[in-house]
């Protein structure tokens, strides 16, 4: 197991980056008194985020990319904490870093992805075209827009006046209580809709994933013997599965 892990290059890179990240965070804590702590924390966190996100996308073994996704989400939680969003940082680590990625790793292991043909990557040409289109092209467009460079044909590549947001300085606010007040006041309707969406997703995923198990309702209540859920699930299946097998 350890030998395989050491053979995977993306795992080695991410391990190195993680160890350096821990060292840099400790360093930034000590440097925080002279004013460079925030910068150092930002650069460390974003480096780890980008490298481990690249590992998620490119790692040959899918289990490693699942664990790298945990690292990415935890570090994004650190970025939220830098942006004065304390509640969001905790929620990010708990929900995305904990629950969602655990579900992903469950799915990787349950679908037996290690011996699947889906792990064979595409050809180099396909990946190159995808990289140029999504990676470079999309980033170039986003970068041009966010730096305020105008690429209208009449006046190409002229720096416009700085946008309104570049002059504001962030202030530190304690967000948790204020978020609760906003959720139960101004945003009460979207809040309820979000809870209904969560309930629908819960029930829907259970119904989708448990199609085989059919619980006897009408006739089994008359019998004296206890209900055997497993036997009844083997005896009765949905018609869609019968047509598939025949």
């Amino acid at each position, binding site marked *: 197991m350890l030998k395989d892990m050491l053979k995977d290059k993306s795992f080695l890179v991410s391990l190195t980056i993680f160890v350096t990240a821990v060292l840099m965070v400790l360093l930034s804590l000590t440097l925080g008194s002279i004013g460079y702590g925030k910068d150092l924390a930002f650069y460390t966190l974003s480096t780890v985020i980008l490298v481990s996100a690249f590992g998620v996308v490119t790692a040959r073994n899918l289990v490693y990319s699942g664990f790298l996704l945990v690292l990415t989400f935890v570090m994004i939680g650190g970025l939220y904490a830098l942006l004065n969003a304390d509640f969001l940082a905790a929620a990010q680590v708990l929900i995305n870093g904990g629950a969602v990625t655990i579900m992903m790793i469950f*799915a990787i292991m349950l679908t037996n992805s290690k011996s699947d043909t889906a792990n064979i990557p595409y050809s180099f040409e396909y990946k190159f075209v995808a990289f140029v289109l999504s990676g470079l092209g999309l980033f170039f467009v986003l970068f041009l827009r*966010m730096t305020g460079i105008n690429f209208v044909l009449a006046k190409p590549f002229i720096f416009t006046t700085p946008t309104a947001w570049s002059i504001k300085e962030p202030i530190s606010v304690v967000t948790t209580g204020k978020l609760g007040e906003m959720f139960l006041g101004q945003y009460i309707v979207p809040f309820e809709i979000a809870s209904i969406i969560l309930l629908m997703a819960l029930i829907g995923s259970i119904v989708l994933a448990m199609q085989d198990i059919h619980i006897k309702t009408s006739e089994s209540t008359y019998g004296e013997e206890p209900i055997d859920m497993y036997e009844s699930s083997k005896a009765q299946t949905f018609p869609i599965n019968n047509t598939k097998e025949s």
Partner: protein
Amino acid sequence: MTLTLYHYLIVAALLFCMGMYGIITSKNAVRVLMSMELALAGVSINFVAFSNYITPAALTGQIFTIFIMTVSAAEAGVGLAIIFNVYKNFKTVDMDKIDLMKW
């Protein structure tokens, strides 16, 4: 050197582009879902950064981020249930092999 909004926007844009690249080049359906989560995280960083730098007192961007988190969790749950069913029927999660309704 102080941190500006652009630093966060560039990191978020890079993360979003990596998510897009992963969605395009992944054969495994679970990895496609993971790349989608990466792209959503990039969008969330944008929202929080804008909320912090433009309207620090209003917190609207953080509210939106919580909604994004809710929807992405729901999407991951339903998507994984669908992937389980696909695996049960096709015995693979290869996106190229799932071509029952290919035109």
